[in-house]
């Protein structure tokens, strides 16, 4: 138990520290790298709770795909961080004040944390016995059965995201030669080949 607790605090501390670094690092590439570090540690926290599927998904999707994509974007866009930071100091005091107030209040709220007395125990989904059912299967049962409605809604949301990305960025520029595979495949001989009778001695 002690080791578990120690590991938990290690992971948690690193997550928080790297999260701070994400927003404070000068170099945006460093920021993304710290983000990846934060993801890894969060995955570690999931593992500690026995949610190995989530831990793996986090590593595969967020680290493997999203963060790397971020990295590419940051490197390609060459964002001038100094410019983005303009006004940061100007608003720091009042921002800090608001943040501080909110923090104090939330601490007070958490200090007074009591589960509402009328709460129905186990009103959420019952957690299946991990020895009987794998993590992945349990999640699948919940997502595809009990929460099918939400799953489908999420699908629609992703569809919109896709449509939106295409609508807002895809351009059919004039004068740009692009490969059209279907055109290439469907090309007939007659379209590309022209037979000419070359008179003898006349040249082409």
């Amino acid at each position, binding site marked *: 138990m002690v080791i578990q607790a120690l590991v938990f605090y290690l992971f948690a501390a690193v997550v928080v520290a790297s999260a701070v670094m994400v927003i404070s690092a000068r170099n945006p590439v460093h920021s993304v790298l710290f983000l990846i570090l934060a993801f890894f540690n969060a995955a570690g926290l999931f593992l500690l709770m026995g949610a190995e599927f989530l831990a793996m998904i986090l590593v595969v999707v967020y680290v493997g795909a999203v963060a790397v994509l971020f990295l590419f974007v940051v490197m390609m866009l060459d964002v001038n961080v100094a410019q983005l930071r303009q006004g940061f100091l100007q608003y720091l005091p009042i921002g800090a004040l608001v943040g501080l107030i909110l923090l104090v209040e939330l601490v007070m709220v958490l200090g007074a944390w009591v589960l509402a007395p*009328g*709460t*129905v125990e186990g009103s959420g989904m019952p957690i299946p016995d991990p020895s009987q059912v794998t993590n992945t299967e349990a999640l699948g049962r919940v997502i595809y059965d009990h929460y099918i*409605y*939400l799953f489908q809604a999420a699908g629609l949301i992703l569809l919109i*995201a896709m449509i939106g990305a295409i*609508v807002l960025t895809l351009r059919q520029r004039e004068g740009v030669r692009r490969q059209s595979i279907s055109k290439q495949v469907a090309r007939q001989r007659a379209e590309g080949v022209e037979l000419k009778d070359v008179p003898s001695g006349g040249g082409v």
Partner: protein
Amino acid sequence: MSIGADIVAALPELFLAGTAIILLMLGVFMRDISTRSIGLLAVAALAFAGALIYLGDGRGTVAFNGLFLNDGFGDFMKVLVLIGAALTIVMALRGLEQEQMNQFEFPVLLVLATVGMLMMISANDLISLYMGLELQSLALYVVAAFRRDSLRSSEAGLKYFVLGSLASGMLLYGMSMVYGFTGSTSFDVLAQVFASQEDAPSIGLIVGIVFIAAGLAFKISAVPFHMWTPDVYEGAPTPVTAFLAAAPKVAAMALLVRVLMGPFGDLVAQWQQIVVFIALASMLLGSFAAIVQSNIKRLMAYSSIGHVGFALVGLAAGSEAGVRGVAVYMAIYLFMTVGVFAVILAMRVNGRAVEAMDDLKGLSKTNPLMALAMAALMFSMAGIPPLAGFFGKFYVFMAAVEAGLFELAVIGVLASVVAAYYYLRIVKVMYFDEPVEAFDKPVGSELASVLAISTLVIVLFVLIPGPIVDGAATAAEALTSAGR
């Protein structure tokens, strides 16, 4: 409950979602199909969904393991949303062609946004609420930036997106707090928990409610979560603005009412002050800030902020009469807004859209019918009897007075006086100023008919208030009796 019954219960939503995907396929694979035909098909689908709701009274109440709920309140609001969406898509058709945004994705996105709105209204769980909200919002972010070559449109979309994300964050944070303090996200369970509670709820719960209310207040653009509204209304293409101002407002308001009156219905004393505060702030800011606006779209943004404030007065009452007032108000607001945007969409000089108030000068001479309709709408917005707008205000203020919120009602009436100033100024500009260049004619049958429909609804409301008032009464009764 079997999945078949679930599907039947959510048939209108499912039908619309399926239609959206089919329309998308049509647009992608039939190269020569026009945006107009896609749009008309979308409108037909919306109408059919409306018919499904209207005819399908007995299609079950709770579905999908308690995530989805059908009731009289939802049906009323859904029909309103569908009407608003359908009318604004009809209006948008010509605008799309004129504004070089002739892409078939536009109606598809709007249909998907409408699906999101219906899901919001039917939400019976914090998670399904959030899903519906995001479905709607994401589609709207995209359409706000739809004219990607226009800097203003892109900026509008981006602002909307970033601030919307912030609001979503607040909403989620509030939900997590509520979950943390009650152990459930289901509306039914929450209502049970609060009903059985004797003493005052813990402060953490209230903070959670504040965050949820803030997140939802962003969607109805209530002060102080309204900041995006003027910029987005002005920057977005006018057909999009018309859509933004109508159906999503109704849906978000319905959602707010459902959340506060449903699961948190027993905590009226707790959340009443939030609602009173944002109602006051919205009414005052909406009335005052609009005075100095010269851009009519921006003016409409402030106008909608003010109207939301008035509608919230009804919610602040926290009674059945209040909910009925909100429902009536939103229904009337919907028609007024659609009508006004029909006029704004018709404001084109030499093929170019204009949106300054001065461009309306002397409209009574260049296009008397349009000016007359606009004047009726403006008088209604100002709340001058016997037009519908008066009755909307009447119902909410009466509810507030019955609930003992006299100060709120009085300030509300004063704010409506201030607001009357800029509405009547438009009438003055149209009728008493020297004409400037006339608008292009003809305005198009779509705009003309939408304008005619909405103006008739507003003018004839006093004679035939039945459909709206009775519907709202049934809706309010369904909502307030369900939780008890």
